[in-house]
């Protein structure tokens, strides 16, 4: 049985297959509307989420399946002190596949050891978020038409930003990729991620603290929110939260075919004036999340044919 904990659990070939499937789902959604009939997805969200949980649920419903679950730890037995392993042991007997988010890093890895059905990591603390990365990859492929040779600027919280860590891991497998890491000193990319996915793979990169300096050189600008929930100290959060704000003025220096991505939710790091710029693709990115999750659910349930195939 396969689980998805880290984006690197999927090979480049498998990611290509998922992207091709998501493209096909977008082109002819009716052919997929019944392929998971009778299957149940459990969404176990021990930490609040809007997009990820709803897009998982929307994905399963769009495949003709059903969903059950909880959206915060307070409404689950975790509030009574139940362990992750016990929760998964029980819930996996009620469903066919699980999408799980937890504030503690490594919780899905513990969960999958006790689950009788496939577990998808829907985000574990500041660690990994592989389905956001799949969403990001589908976005990059659809918006730029390629993976190779891209210069990717990652801006904001690179320390706790799990989407950034997973995206770097995934993109480091493609040729000619270059990373530009833009963050305040306190929120720099953890050294082991830099070592493992960038330096050891001989990937070109640069680091800076000024967004203006690099606006003109990136093909993709991946903005992130400074996440209040990752800080133990409110003062640090308040000091760092407004480090970067992308506005229409800054966009003037960007390439004409550059794209702006953001895993959302946005607070104020992208001015709403940027939303109407055709290069701003974060809302399209959120939409793609539903289709790539449909493709992933199908794959993990072993459903490999659309209607009529």
């Amino acid at each position: 049985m396969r689980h998805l904990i880290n984006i690197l659990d999927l090979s480049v070939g498998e990611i290509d297959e998922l992207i091709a499937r998501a493209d096909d789902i977008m082109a002819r959604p009716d052919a997929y509307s019944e392929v998971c009939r009778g299957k149940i997805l459990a969404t176990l969200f021990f930490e609040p989420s809007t997009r990820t949980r709803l897009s998982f649920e929307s994905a399963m419903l769009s495949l003709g399946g059903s969903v059950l679950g909880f959206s915060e730890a307070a409404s689950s037995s975790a509030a009574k002190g139940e362990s992750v392993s016990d929760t998964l042991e029980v819930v996996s007997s009620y469903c066919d596949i699980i999408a799980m988010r937890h504030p503690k890093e490594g919780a899905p890895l513990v969960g999958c050891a006790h689950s009788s059905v496939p577990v998808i990591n829907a985000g574990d603390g500041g660690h990994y978020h592989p389905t956001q990365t799949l969403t990001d990859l589908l976005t990059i492929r659809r918006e730029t038409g390629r993976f190779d040779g891209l210069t990717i600027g990652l801006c904001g919280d690179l320390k706790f930003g799990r989407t950034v860590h997973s995206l770097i891991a995934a993109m480091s497998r493609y040729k000619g990729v270059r990373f530009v890491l833009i963050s305040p000193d306190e929120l720099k990319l953890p050294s082991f991620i830099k070592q493992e996915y960038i330096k050891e793979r001989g990937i070109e990169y640069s680091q800076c603290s000024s967004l203006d300096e690099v606006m003109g050189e990136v093909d993709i600008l991946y903005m992130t929110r400074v996440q209040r929930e990752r800080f133990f100290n409110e003062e640090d959060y308040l000091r760092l939260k407004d480090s970067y704000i992308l506005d229409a003025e800054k966009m003037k220096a960007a390439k004409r075919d550059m794209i702006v991505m953001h895993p959302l939710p946005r607070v104020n790091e992208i001015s709403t004036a940027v939303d109407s710029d055709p290069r701003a693709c974060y809302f399209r990115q959120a939409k793609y999340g539903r289709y790539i999750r449909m493709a992933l659910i199908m794959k993990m349930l072993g459903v490999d044919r659309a209607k009529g195939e």
Partner: protein
Amino acid sequence: MNVDSIKNGIVIDHIAAGSGMRLYDLLGLDALDCSVAIIKNVPSRKMDKKDIIKIDADIAINFDVIGFVDPGATVNIIRGGDLVEKRSISAPDRLVNVLKCKNPRCITSCEQDIDHVFKLTDKDNKIYRCIYCETKQN
């Protein structure tokens, strides 16, 4: 300095000078009732200085712990006053319930009855990481 030789037991030799106490702690030797000697900074031709631990009982020992603290150490098994086995040690690929992850965001900080597992991720620099959150051990 003289420490009596042992009849039945274990001698952990060629421990890098300064690592003996850590090995003593991680092996839980403080819980033993038998005689245990830690000899620090013993002159050595090969190593200049080394630490030695002598355990005066034939106990089961966790070789992974020794390999983690110092893969260059050797273990001599003594029975009836004779050396019956000399073992070389290597750094283990995994360490189970030897170290605790110190990351407060790690699932091991709250999940009960969970094994604390570290994996060797960088052989050259001997870096172990928690398998759950990937935090480096200190």
